[in-house]
């Protein structure tokens, strides 16, 4: 499976310390087991890899020429589960722009508990209501990066 990327994305990989092979593996795994999000109106997908200290996301499209990698991002905060425990009805519009490809369900935007450096707090995530797989958008990852920096400074 070939991965195509612009110079901008190549630089992003370099700046963030990702290897192309790692990202390729994340995408291949998602393509084989179907655990990925698909945008409601575009042929864009999000695949992820949870390791102990880092969750990495790849945003990509598929064309006849292979995989086009559009964005890569990560966060160190570990998602523990839904804030408040269980998935229950909420009275705000929590439908995300994403569909869980595996379950064919519209993913919801919900608060999840996130832990980092011994601190657990809530944060916003995209959650499949059926398989309860959690994802984070690129914008929220940026927000989490700021939160992580603050915790690193304060907990040092």
């Amino acid at each position, binding site marked *: 499976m070939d991965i195509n990327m612009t110079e901008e994305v190549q630089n992003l990989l370099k700046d963030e310390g990702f290897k192309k092979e790692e990202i390729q593996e994340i995408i291949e795994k998602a393509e084989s087991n179907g655990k990925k999000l698909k945008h409601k109106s575009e042929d864009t997908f999000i695949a992820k890899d949870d390791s102990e200290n880092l969750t990495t996301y790849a945003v990509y499209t598929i064309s006849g020429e292979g995989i086009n990698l559009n964005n890569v991002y990560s966060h160190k905060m570990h998602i523990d589960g839904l804030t408040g425990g269980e998935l229950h009805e909420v009275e*705000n519009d929590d439908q995300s722009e994403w569909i869980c490809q595996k379950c064919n369900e519209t993913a919801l935007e919900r608060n999840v508990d996130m832990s980092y450096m*011994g*601190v657990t707090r809530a944060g*916003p995530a995209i959650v499949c209501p059926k398989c309860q797989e959690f994802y984070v958008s690129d*914008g929220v990852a940026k927000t989490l990066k700021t939160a992580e920096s603050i915790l690193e400074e304060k907990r040092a």
Partner: protein
Amino acid sequence: MPAEDYAPINQDWLEKAGNLWTTPWADTPSERVTVDPIILSHAASMFRKSPGYFYKNPEEAVRMVCHTCELYDVTPVGHYLYADYWGEDYGGELKFQESAPPGMQKRPITTPEDVDNFEVLSPEELAKGPSFTRHFRALDTCKEEYPQMFAPITQLAGTMELATNWAAIEDVFMWMITDPDLVDKLCSKAVDHMVNASKVTADRYGANVMITGSVVASGDLMDREQIKRFSYNPVSKAVRKVLNEGAGPGIYYHLCGNHSDDFDLWKDAPMSPFTIVQIGYDGKEIFPTSKLVENFGDRCTCFGTVDTKLVDRGTPAQVYEQAKQQVLAGKDSPRGFILGTACECPTNAPPANVHAIVKAAKDHGKYEKF
């Protein structure tokens, strides 16, 4: 009064106060609960200045706030804001008053057609507008002169507060009955404005702490369904969008007034790792901290409150007693606790009453969880 006319801030105090302030967010052990009485124009009264002078002079305002924080031994953050932001950016007229915060005199929306034609300003346009220009004069001063007391706050307010800064409150409330879809439209524009305003602060300072919530949309003026439709839902949408734009991470849900019938909705409002929920009143009584912690303690930092009417008109003993009850009920809340006032510290509150809140935190707010 220029910066050099103030006595230097005691650095030992600042370090200690900073540690108290960090605990609710980062679970770092410290001695006791921090107190944030939301000092704004009250600081002016400490320097024999008027609220009008305070709001017309943002650089001086933030200096006065920072030094008043030291004087009272409270949370070291240089606030500057008022309720009626964002009206003049869209062509309204803001009047500076001598004895009260600035208030909207003329609003940009007067007819339903104006709502349709109302165009939300871009982040670039907002950054140059009068609200941010004034706001950044204060924040830049704080960042330069009191860097350890700086927080990149944006006074977003909620969708109903924006709606009633853009159109007269009586018109908005009439439309809620006669043409609720029009108010939906107005609130939807408020959502876009909130996102754009957050982007401005995040771009300027690298982070953003949004003050939002529900003030006009409280139980004394609106019922639960109205609050849900015109405040909770659009505010949730705005906060979610802001976080998805990377323009967080701070969220301060300021639920001013009576929220007996809608407080539970906010348990599911979008949260970030740095979220505070503050609820003013439960009916006519101060919102019990025990109820706040029971509902929000496992979700975010709880901001327990002392009745601002009591701080303004009560005795120090009455203030102390209420602060004591609130701090005892909240101090070991799992995700942090702050003791403060139900809303802004009244301009002419007796200093002894503000001190009584701090004294209660010192006497009864020692953490047991560390």
